């Protein structure tokens, strides 16, 4: 049997960073299979001690997450501004980015628009007749 994989190689295998060589070795080696099982067990025990949500809600961690989210938002906004100013260089520096689309128009508002247009035309005809 070939030399045992290193601790790092076994851990890599456990987190799906696998090589055929290590996979083949683990399949045929009881010692390494047991080592991988022990690693998996300790990983499970660690996860049972504190779930991910609790960990993410630790003050120090959640503070960084919040900061990162706001930084990303700011970064995206800055990138969008940069793209806009590159595309339209004549715009003032602090041009607000507005939505490039409008909400789908509801059928009822289209009807109101049609009635209003008819009324304007009718008023126009009447004014024309009496003028």
């Amino acid at each position: 049997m070939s030399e045992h994989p290193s601790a790092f190689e076994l851990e890599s295998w456990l987190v799906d960073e696998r090589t055929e060589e290590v996979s083949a070795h683990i399949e045929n080696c009881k010692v390494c299979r047991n080592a991988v099982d022990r690693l998996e067990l300790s990983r499970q025990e660690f996860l049972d001690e504190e779930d991910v949500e609790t960990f993410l809600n630790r003050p120090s961690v959640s503070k960084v997450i919040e900061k990162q989210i706001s930084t990303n938002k700011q970064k995206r906004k800055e990138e969008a501004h940069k793209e806009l100013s590159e595309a339209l260089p004549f715009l003032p520096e602090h041009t607000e980015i507005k939505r490039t689309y409008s909400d789908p128009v509801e059928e009822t508002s289209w009807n109101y628009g049609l009635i209003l247009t008819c009324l304007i035309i009718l008023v126009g005809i009447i004014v024309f007749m009496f003028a």
Partner: protein
Amino acid sequence: MFRRCRLITRDFELAEIAFETSFIKVIEFGSNFRRVQSKLRWLYDQCDKESIRALAKYLELSSEASEHNNWDENTVTVASFWSELSSGDQLIAIRKYVDGFSSEKISKLAGLSVRSVGYAERRLRDKTDAILEATDYE
């Protein structure tokens, strides 16, 4: 990651600090993490750096503090060990005793000759012996 931090620091609380800081590094690294080729290697590198940094801080605080403070002697010894190593020797120590790599593999990874790695290993052993002797652990 936590297991690795514990392995380096040999101290539960310092491992907690190192683990949490390493995780924060991941968050700060953000989407760039997706582009990292070996994610485990990258994560472990963060753990290694943060564990050694936590130990260095512990050593610094323990040396500054008055005698009344209750500093763990084992942790101070471990911290002294790491602080006295050069960054190259730290890396070799981690590859050898934490990752479990052979000298040949370390030499390939570090771009050093097998002989240089052998010398480094001997230095590490000497350092460990000196520390053990000084602290009467033998």
